[in-house]
């Protein structure tokens, strides 16, 4: 079953509900905690406060302070504690309040979480999840808008995912919690309430490493992940209105990423535009662009195009201008189409 089929199947079933992305996350946490006593949740303000975005609302009331608790204000302590718990057999899910605040926990992430299995030859492992809201569009300035996922995709030993739909958010979070590896789980905060969609009532997971074709098309492959996805759809709509058939792909997972799906798509369409909101230099999409031209060179009718964030700190006043919007994406597509 391809990802597109999977999505259709979901919509077809009567056993679904429409929820938003943040509810999907809360549900995933709730269900996994019910399923497995080893799952514990912690971070800044995740307890009585329910998290600053309310992702953990109600969970402390349900599962008690032993399983859902607030920590001191230290990301190094939070990530480090998760590593130590995982090594001792728990399944910790740690929240970092904003992805912008992973910095103080950076060395714990790259030196401990990412390397535990490797450096010990598999004697010790650190299956854990770091959940964190990321991305712009909320007028949060430098420290509530950044998209630091590329740092983590450049760190072997970590898996990195970023859903854009409630279905994927719930399914990927469950997969992350059940998996045997450390997963950095980025949540596109501007979609928390804006992204609504169906989720099955039954238990399911979304495999880490699989992309999804959101709509099929023949003229151009438009590839993104996370917060930019609705804008990809808008651009595809706009181009569709002009008679251009755009294939929209949501990567969902960055490490590992679904190269097969992407290459297959570009081999079909001959054109690719990659969209992300992180600064461009050493952006994860550089790897996707590299791979496409390396492996689908002869299919390419135009250079791979890219719309990324600007190589500047995230500004406050120009919050919306900074982000790739549908216009900028459309323009990049047009450039590829007119090449």
């Amino acid at each position, binding site marked *: 079953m391809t990802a597109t089929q999977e999505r259709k199947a979901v919509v077809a079933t009567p056993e679904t509900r429409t929820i938003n992305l943040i509810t999907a996350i809360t549900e995933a946490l709730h269900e996994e905690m019910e399923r497995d006593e080893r799952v514990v949740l912690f971070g800044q*303000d995740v307890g009585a*406060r329910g998290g600053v975005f309310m992702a953990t609302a109600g969970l402390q009331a349900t599962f008690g302070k032993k399983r859902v608790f607030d920590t001191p204000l230290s990301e190094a302590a939070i990530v480090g504690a998760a590593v130590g718990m995982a090594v001792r057999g728990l399944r910790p899910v740690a929240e970092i309040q904003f992805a912008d605040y992973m910095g103080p926990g950076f060395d714990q992430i790259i030196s401990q979480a990412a390397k535990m299995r490797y450096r010990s030859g598999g004697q010790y492992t650190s299956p854990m999840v770091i959940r964190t809201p990321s991305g712009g569009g909320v007028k949060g*300035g430098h*420290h*509530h808008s950044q998209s630091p996922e590329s740092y983590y995709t450049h760190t072997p030993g970590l898996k990195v995912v970023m859903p854009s739909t409630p279905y994927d958010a719930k399914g990927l979070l469950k997969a992350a919690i059940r998996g045997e590896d450390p997963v950095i789980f980025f949540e596109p905060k501007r979609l928390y309430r804006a992204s609504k969609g169906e989720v099955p009532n039954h238990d399911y997971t979304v495999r880490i490493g699989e992309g999804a074709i959101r709509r099929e098309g023949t003229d151009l492959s438009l590839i993104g992940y996370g917060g930019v996805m609705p804008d990809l759809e808008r651009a595809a709509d706009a181009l569709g209105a002009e008679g251009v058939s755009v294939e929209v792909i949501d990567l969902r997972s960055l490490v590992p990423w679904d190269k097969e799906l992407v290459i297959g798509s570009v081999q079909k369409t001959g054109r690719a535009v990659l969209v992300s909101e992180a600064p461009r230099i050493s952006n994860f999409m550089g790897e996707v662009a590299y791979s496409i031209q390396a492996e689908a060179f002869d299919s390419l009718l135009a250079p791979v195009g890219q719309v990324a964030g600007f*190589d500047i700190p995230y500004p406050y006043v*120009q919050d919306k*201008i900074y982000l790739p919007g549908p216009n900028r994406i459309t323009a990049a597509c047009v450039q590829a189409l007119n090449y």
Partner: protein
Amino acid sequence: MTTLPLVEPLPVTGIQPFTKEPIRYIGEDGLPVQPLPAAYTPERLRELHGVMLRAREFDRKLITLLRQGRTTFYAQSSGMEATQVGLAHSVRPGHDWVWPYYRDHTLALALGVPMFELISQVLGSNSDPSRGRQMPHHFAARKQNFVSISSSIANQVPPATGTAMAQKYLGTDEITICTFGDGATSEGDWHAGMNMAGAMAAPCLFVCENNQWAISTNLRGQTASENIHIKAKAYGMPGFYVDGNDLVAVMEVCTHAAEWVRAGNGPALVECLTYRVGSHSNADADAEKHYRTREEVQEWLGRDPVVRVEKLLEHLGHPIGSEERANMISAVHREVDEQVIRAEATGQPDWRIMFEDVYADMPAHLREEAAMLRAEQEGGRK
């Protein structure tokens, strides 16, 4: 009202570090619990009271601005005015250097940063000296050596140590002041900066504005240490403990500690015990009720530091009349309104400014990105 003379050290008495109880000069009833130093004349106290009230009303007006959608964020210092105004008076503005945090606009006002600049920052207008780059409450003021604020908690502590090291290296008589909340003391960077300051005997005054909450985490959830100032022992510096709602006590202790630092003894830590009577920020306005009791908030509302000064003035026979007080308040409201109009009139920075100040010169890749955006932004207007 807002410009301070270079600090004249108040006569320093027997202020000791590591006291069990917070040092206090004025009781909650407004009566001195130890002799009031001569410097606190009714005139001086009235002046200080004016600074506190101005900051309080500035805070209140920000809520209105937010409700009107003219700004997007506030972080109030209501209830913490004695701490910030008291601290300001141990600083020589524009001479000493300050590495503040996001809740320090009362400190900024007391140091003489023009309200116009603060309002401009909050609105992200063209008159913002920081050019609209940061979210509200991340101020910077060049003239006052009030260094630009980073949201990242405790991030300012190692740099503050560095500035103090530079001051020592340059042989100046400046000192550096570094402020932070109680929550900040849990961060690794806090420790790194404090320890470095101790080891380097850097002339830095560290001030913890212990308002007892870090969003929803209270001090007991934050650390198992008895209090904050005892942590100074880990760095070989004195730790002073002061009633942060007692203006006189804060001024006396901070001045004492600052003089000690100026004298070349190395750094010092002051813990001001106060309380955040409002929500953490606008984003916390409703949630706040889930994590702390109304009784606790009420209790601390009853310990209002502005009111305490008013009670003291009354005790000294120089009460502030209710009409006088009301006039002061409406003067501040007018001042805010005027500055808002002035700031808004300057407009907001456009897309061009995004690419400036990333580097001293604009490298080619940013020129290309700017050109792309120009086409998008101006192309659309054709």
